[in-house]
């Protein structure tokens, strides 16, 4: 492992440590604050308050890319949302595997339709990047920009169980890949694919809620697998399992 890589990993660990601070802080004072019970369910947080979740997302690699090695790759998954008005809220998400990261920032507008049904529409812009420096194997890095217009429909069942279905279109705006001194850039807007997510949210223990869901992405390119240099011009299936504690 090179010094540069070790420094990077230490840097990311530091970021993750910092990321944890607000969540633990908010967890300690949970009893004194309004209950935070949804991240995916289309309902804005209280205006000017944060609503966060911390968990893992597991992405199964498609056989076309990883061949006989089919693994479920974990990533730390942080959601941070803030109410702007009673219907409009900011939605941020940070996914990291230390050597590759994705930060997504977006706006959502949510409104109830009935006392159980709610909908939202949003637009997220996501920047991703990764770097691999491994002796005799990789001297590569890549980064890019995607955006995801999305709509969600949520239904609140009895006993605080929330069911949310979310649809996204994944648009590619920019991609840059470097190996050694060579680089290639693709900056043409194109539809990369689409994704459907189904999520259940409910209390798990005392006032702690969880999001448990499944995301099915059909896309031409997946940022988590940039280092495999997918050359297929066809959508591949990337199933994801989502599990997070709402903080």
């Amino acid at each position, binding site marked *: 492992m090179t010094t540069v890589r070790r420094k990077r990993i230490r840097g990311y660990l530091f970021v993750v440590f910092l990321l944890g601070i607000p969540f633990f802080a908010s967890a300690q004072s949970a009893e004194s604050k309004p209950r935070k019970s949804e991240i995916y369910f289309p309902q804005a947080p209280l205006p000017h308050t944060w609503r966060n979740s911390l968990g893992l997302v597991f992405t199964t690699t498609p*056989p*076309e890319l990883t*061949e*006989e090695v089919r693994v479920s790759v974990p990533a730390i998954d942080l959601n941070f949302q803030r109410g702007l008005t009673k219907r409009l809220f900011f939605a941020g998400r940070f996914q990291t595997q230390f050597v590759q990261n994705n930060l997504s920032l977006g706006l959502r507008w949510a409104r109830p339709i009935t006392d159980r049904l709610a909908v939202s529409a949003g637009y997220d812009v996501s920047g991703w990047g990764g770097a*691999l420096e491994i002796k*005799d*194997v*990789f*001297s*590569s890095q890549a980064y890019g920009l995607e955006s995801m217009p999305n709509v969600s429909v949520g239904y609140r069942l009895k006993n605080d169980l929330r069911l949310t279905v979310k649809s996204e279109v994944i648009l590619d705006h920019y991609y840059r*890949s*470097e*190996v*050694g*001194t*060579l680089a*290639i850039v693709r900056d043409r807007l194109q539809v990369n694919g689409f994704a459907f997510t189904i999520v259940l949210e409910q209390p798990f223990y005392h006032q702690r809620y969880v999001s448990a869901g499944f995301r099915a992405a059909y896309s031409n390119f997946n940022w988590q697998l940039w*280092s495999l*240099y997918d*050359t*297929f*011009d*066809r959508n591949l299936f990337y199933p994801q399992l989502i599990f997070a504690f709402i903080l």
Partner: protein
Amino acid sequence: MEGVYVVSDGSTQFGSEVALKWSYLLEGTDSTHYLSVFTGIDAAYFNLEGSAQTDSLVMNGYWRKLVNADIGLARLVVQAKHNGRLQAFTGKLPVGDSLVIKGLYGAGKDAPTQPLTLQYARPLNKRPFSIMAHRSGGRTADLLPASENSVAIIKLASRLGATGIEMDVRYTKDGVPVLYHDNTLNLRLIQKNGLTGSLESYTYKQLSALVRLVNGEKIPTLEEALEAVVYNTDLTFVWLDTKYAGPMEPVQAIQQKYNQKAKQAGRDLTIVIGLPTTDALDSYKALESKANTPILCELDTAITRSIGAGIWAPRWTLGPQTDEVLAMKAQGRTVYVWTLDEPTFIEKFINQNRFDGILSNYSPVVAFYHYTEQ
């Protein structure tokens, strides 16, 4: 007929320029000649077979894009352009005339209806360069008509643009060297039969009776594969990738036997043993005699020098490594890069003009960028 052609009709599908190259396949005393067309878009290639008609040369076959599942039939007629007029090509081209290949291509199994016109522009780039096809010709994931590491894909490799191939060698439980890439029997490579576990835990008799590759072929022995290379193809280079752990003597003996057979058959063919890991390096070092055993080293330059490997083959993900490549070439070594499939990077590596060859799953793309380079 070989050369770089400008595409007029059909350029949206196949790009503005293509490279045409002949290859042949020998079956005993019979030979079949194929015309391949390599394009710069979507790793597309044509596989065409000529049939002489009464007054013209007609090429029939199919086209395929490796990056997706697009495929179709093609029917082209070779014509000569004389004083601005097209006329039948008689096999000889007077000075001042040029070749025009006109015809139709289609989609799927439908009869071809879309026009395709290719006009001769210039000869192919003559610079010596090895175009090596991964896994004996191509990857199963690219939906080729033959399975990777099969005798059938070896026979297809030249039509995909390859001048050489890399094949993956393992030992069966009873010590028979065979071609197989993965660590385990799995449905990516073989037809469903329920068997799991490593290939090395089965005898050749068991594999031969019960296991078929995805397109129905048997797992070939290394000897069957090299027999096909020497006596059926015009390939000039074979890279035996060491996927096994253990003694190298049986593979060395087969390598020497077929290098000798190729020489006797008047074939320009070199078979080398690839050393991808320190385990493979140890197996090589443990050989009693290293005479007549050409090797290719994938490890760093110091190791490559220390064992006297004639070929150094670093990963492409390390970048062009210009200083190292020039230093190794200055010492008389050949330098290949592997396994490079990204078309834009293939173009950049070729344009840098420093490597002696590229190993790729997309040999049609390497062929296109190499032959059209000016």
